[in-house]
Structure formats: C-alpha cells, structure tokens
C-alpha cells in the first residue's frame, strides 16, 4: 500500500512553548491512522498545521499523488481543501446550523458548482447546463445522506439535528469535497456507544470504498482500537510510539504516558 501523507520533522512553536517537537510519521492510502495522546499532547496542533490553519515553524508535510508529491506548506487557508483536497472536521462541530442539511452538503461542493454556474452567470440565466450540474450535486448529497440514514431530514436545519447526527453530517460534508485525506478531530466525542459503533461503520466504509486516507484524533479507545490500522502516540509534542493497535495496547511507553510511571 502506497504512502499518502508523510510528515517530516514537523515543529510548531508558540512563543517559548513547543507544541510539536520534531514529529515525523506517515499515513497510507485506504488506512485509518490514529493520533492519540493525553490532553495537551499537540494532536489538534498537528491537524491545524496539516489543514493550513497554522504555519509550522519547521518541517515538511507532503501529500503523495501517484508519482508526484505536493508540499502542504505551500497551501494555506481555503486552498488546502480546494487545491490539495485535504478535508477536516472540528472538535466542536462546525456545521452551518441555520441552513438545511442539503444546503450544508451543497456548500461543500461550492467550487465545482461555482464553475458549473458560470460564476453565477448561467445560474442567473437559468441555463440547463447549470440545472443539470446542480442536480448531480444534489444526487451526490443524497448518496451520502442515504449512507448515514438522514435522507428524510434533508430539508431540516442542520442545527436541529441530534448531536450524533450532526457529527455524522459533518463527516459526510467533508467527504463531499472528495478529499484525498480526511482529518477527523475527535469524531466520537459526546457519542453514546451505539452512535460510536455507527461511526466506526461509517469510517470503515469510507476507508474501503473511497480513495481516501483517514487521519483520526480520538480519545475514545473503543473507536481507536476498533478501526485503526496504524497508531501514532504523542506526548508533550513528541512521538513516543508508533505501531498497530495491538502493539500500542501493550506498549510500556504508552501506558506510562497515560497512567504515569511507577516510582
């Protein structure tokens, strides 16, 4: 299996604080790579560097595309999603609450629809080319809504959905930009066991059916151990362990980081 993402010597400093210290790891296509670690270990900072919200102090991040590789450092802001096709979700859900579920999924296809609508010109003239493209976008939204079982609520406001459904909606909204890498920031936070199980199913589906690699930050070990192909453990911004889920469970360093060292 080919490499999708390689992070090399990533360092991020905020003033005197080193949030990430010389971190290197790889993530592969069609695999779920989890980043775990105690609170404040720098997990979300890694995400913010990858998705262009922070500019790292040092280090490189590459996204591999067939034979070529593109450096994520070059892209900031909205270009990460637009050009590099790296999508993310947020620790505290960021939907567009006053817009309908369907609209949420259409905004995710904005750039495609913008071109299809001739930068609004064809749309204003109500040309058929645009209407067809819009229908395609709706069909795609429906495809994803069918998968998470929310088709019947497509016309309701996203803010009115139950918490678990909002989580799932945010994930499929990110999938609507057809990302190569999907970064999920604690998707299972606040979910009950049944909802976590559904989430696992959804992530496994994305992993196997779509050409997408998943990078996952998670505290819920039932999720991490259930679906991860590869686990990276951070503590104080440093990578302390890397391996499969089973190896991680039995690693002395990881247990020490979480539970402390026996005096």
């Amino acid at each position, binding site marked *: 299996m080919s490499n999708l993402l390689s992070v090399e010597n990533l360092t991020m400093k905020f003033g005197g604080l080193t949030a990430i210290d010389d971190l290197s790891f790889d993530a592969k296509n069609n695999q779920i790579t989890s980043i775990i670690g105690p609170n404040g270990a720098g997990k979300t900072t890694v995400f913010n560097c990858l998705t262009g919200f922070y500019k790292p102090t040092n280090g490189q991040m590459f996204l591999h595309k067939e034979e070529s590789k593109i450096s994520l450092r070059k892209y900031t802001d*909205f270009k990460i*999603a637009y050009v590099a096709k790296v*999508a993310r979700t947020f620790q505290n859900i960021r939907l567009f609450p006053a*817009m*309908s579920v*369907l609209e949420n999924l259409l*905004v995710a296809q904005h750039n495609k629809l913008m071109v299809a609508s001739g930068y609004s010109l064809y749309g204003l003239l109500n040309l058929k080319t645009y209407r067809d493209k*819009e229908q395609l976008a*709706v069909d795609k939204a429906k495809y994803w809504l069918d998968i998470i079982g929310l088709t019947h609520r497509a016309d309701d406001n996203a803010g009115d959905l139950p918490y678990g459904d909002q989580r799932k909606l945010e994930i499929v909204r990110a999938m609507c930009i057809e990302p190569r890498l999907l970064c999920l920031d604690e998707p299972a936070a606040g979910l009950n066991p049944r909802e976590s199980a559904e989430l696992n199913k959804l992530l496994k589906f994305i992993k196997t059916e779509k050409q997408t690699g998943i990078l996952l930050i998670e505290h819920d070990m039932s999720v991490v151990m259930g679906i991860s192909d590869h686990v990276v453990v951070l503590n104080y911004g440093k990578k302390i362990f890397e391996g499969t889920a089973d190896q991680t469970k039995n690693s002395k360093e990881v247990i020490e980081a979480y539970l402390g060292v026996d005096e």
Partner: protein
Amino acid sequence: MEKKDIIQSFKDSLFTGFIALALFGPIVGLRTASKGEGLFITPQWGVVFLLVGLCILGRFLINLNSARTTEFTIFSKLASKFSAITEDKAKHFAITAILFAVVFPFLPFTDRYFMDVAIMILTYIMLGWGLNIVVGLAGLLDLGYVAFYAVGAYSYALIATTFGWSFWICLPLAGLFAAFFGILLGFPVLRLRGDYLAIVTLGFGEIIRIILINWYEVTNGPDGITGIPRPSFFGLPFKRSPDEGETSFHLFFNLEYSTMHRIIFLYYLILVLALITNYFTLKIRKLPVGRAWEALREDEIACKSLGVNPTNTKLTAFAIGAMFGGFAGSFFATRQAFISPESFTFIESAIIVAIVVLGGMGSQTGVVLASIFLIGITEMFRDLEQYRMIAFGGAMVLIMVFKPKGILANRKPTILMHGDKK
C-alpha cells in the same frame, strides 16, 4: 391573584408615578414663553398630571399582566399569526402587494403627497433589499451603506451634468462606481467581523461624506450639485413647453400637462428598480455564491475547511450590495435634481440597517413591511414635528418586544430535496 399582590403592585405604580412626576415636572411642566418683555414661565400642570397618570396606569397594568399565571399575550399572538399568514401564502402576498403597487398611482385617494411618500418608501425598500445581501445573507454588519448611496448619487449627478448623458447610460455607470467602492471598502475589512466590521464601515460612511464636503472642485462641497437632469420617458421629457425640435410627454400622448406625470413615472421607475433588486436577490440566493454567503455568515472557519474562498465571497457580497445602493442613489439624484452631502448622513445608514434588522435578517418581505412601518409611521406623525422620532423609536421598540428576531424571521431553504410538503 391575591390581595397582597394588588397592593404591592399598586405601591409600585405609585412609585413609578413619583419618578414620572420628578421627570415630567420640570421638563414638561415648566414652559418658558416670551410675553412682552423678557421670558416668563408658564406652568402646564394639566399635561404633567395626565402624563403621570398614564405612567401610573401603565405600570399597574404591566404589573397585573406579569402577575397572571396563564399565558395570554395578545400582541405576540397577533404578530405570530400575521407572520404565519404571510409565510404560508407568501406567493399570494407578494403578487397582491405588487399588483397594489402597480395600480397605486391611479387609486382615487392617491394625491401628490401619497405619491411622494410611496416613492420614499420604495427607495428605502430598494436600499433595504440591497443591504439585505450584505447584512442579511453574508452576515457582514455594514453601518456605512449610505456611502454607496452617496457614490451612486454623485456619480450620476457628475456624469449627467458634465457629459449630459441620459439617465439610462448613467444608471449602470453609477452602479459600477458604487460596486467599485464596495470592493474598495471590502479589501481592508476582509478579516473583520461583527462589531469591528460595523465600526470600520461606519467610519467609511463618514469618510465618503467628508470627502464630498471638502472636495470642493469636484463635488461643489456643501453647496451640492444643482440642475441634475430629470429622467425622460424614453426620450420624451416631462416639460410644459419643450425646447425647439423636441416633443414632450404630454404633447406626444395628447394629454393635459400635469406635474403628476413625472411623479408617476418616477414612481414606476423606482418600483421597477426595486423589483429588479428583489428578483436578483431571490435568484442569486439559490445559486452557489448565495449559499456561500449564508455559509460564511454561519461559520467562516467551516467555509475555509470546505475550500470556499472567503475573500472572493465577501467581496462579491460587498460589490453587489453596493451596486444596488448606487442604483438607488442615482434614482435619488434624478428625483431631487439637487444633492448635497446633507442627504447622506449616518442616520440614513441607521434607518436602512434598522429596516433590514427589524424586517428579519435575510427576509425580502420583511424589508417591505419594515419600510412601510418605519417610514410610514414617521410620515404619519409629521405634524408632531420633532416628536415624530419618538414614533420611530416606539415602532422599533414594539417590533423588538414582540418579534425580537424581526417581523419575518423564518428562513426557507434555498433548495429542497423532498419538495414542498407543508
């Protein structure tokens, strides 16, 4: 309700009356009048007692109302019923309103004064619809919208007086200029949101006004621009005695000359301009760029994470909103035939923002209702002179109390998957 409560609320109202007496006593009760030589004080105790009595009674009624256990608020019920009707029958409502607007000039009770008020209300409706794009859809609180109105008015006035071009050429040019200024304002404020954005846009509005006052060589400063050409009916001017080789409107159609012709024409002109604004907004709201505006209002960070370019999206909102402000401005200039910086003060921006917010952010019908309500009420009480601003304030308070999210606050999705079931 128990006896104790009544006594308590009675005491409370008496206390209110006492405060009212302390306030109204000197302010209303003592009036200076000049009689012969010097000023004398004429007491008006009757008015004071009336006001104090009203305060006591009002306070007592409020107390009674809040002491009740069952929910019974007639105003909010009426208000919600009203908005339910307008929402259910939105289409019928809109068609009726447009038909009424079309036949309005020919109704028996319509006179010159009614027409002037109607034109003013329509101007504000158009401005409200224009600002609705920026504030209601894109969620960018713009307190300097009058600047674009001014840019439109001055570009029209300057182009028309300098080059003598017709209204129909100057109108799009004025819109373009205003849109350009919209982008000019948009660039520096891209990173600002909410309160900070409001302050900068407020400053921008003032900057434009001050430039208009001080750039004497071009704008003629505080004296304003006079003799702005009136619009013509497709080349037929509204004049009693046309120039050599020209046919005027009344001669062409074989009518008795009347100043009302021009007023009616202006009325239809602003009606068409406003309806174009409305149609455009309704259309663009359903396009990707419109959805991106609303998404930006909801959550800018989420927008970025989905690859939506916030810079372009905001700038288009500013530019398009400003363009409609510019159109309204050129209409204003051609209607008045005289403009000066006096017409573009902050209060104008405030009224337009009030119309959008009170109408219900993003609601097109709401803007219409709020314009009629606010402008209509201030006009109705014109006889009260400066006190009519109290009526304006009162109208705002009433809306905010009974419909805190605006007259029509419900947002309809721009696209439906399951069709209109309700």
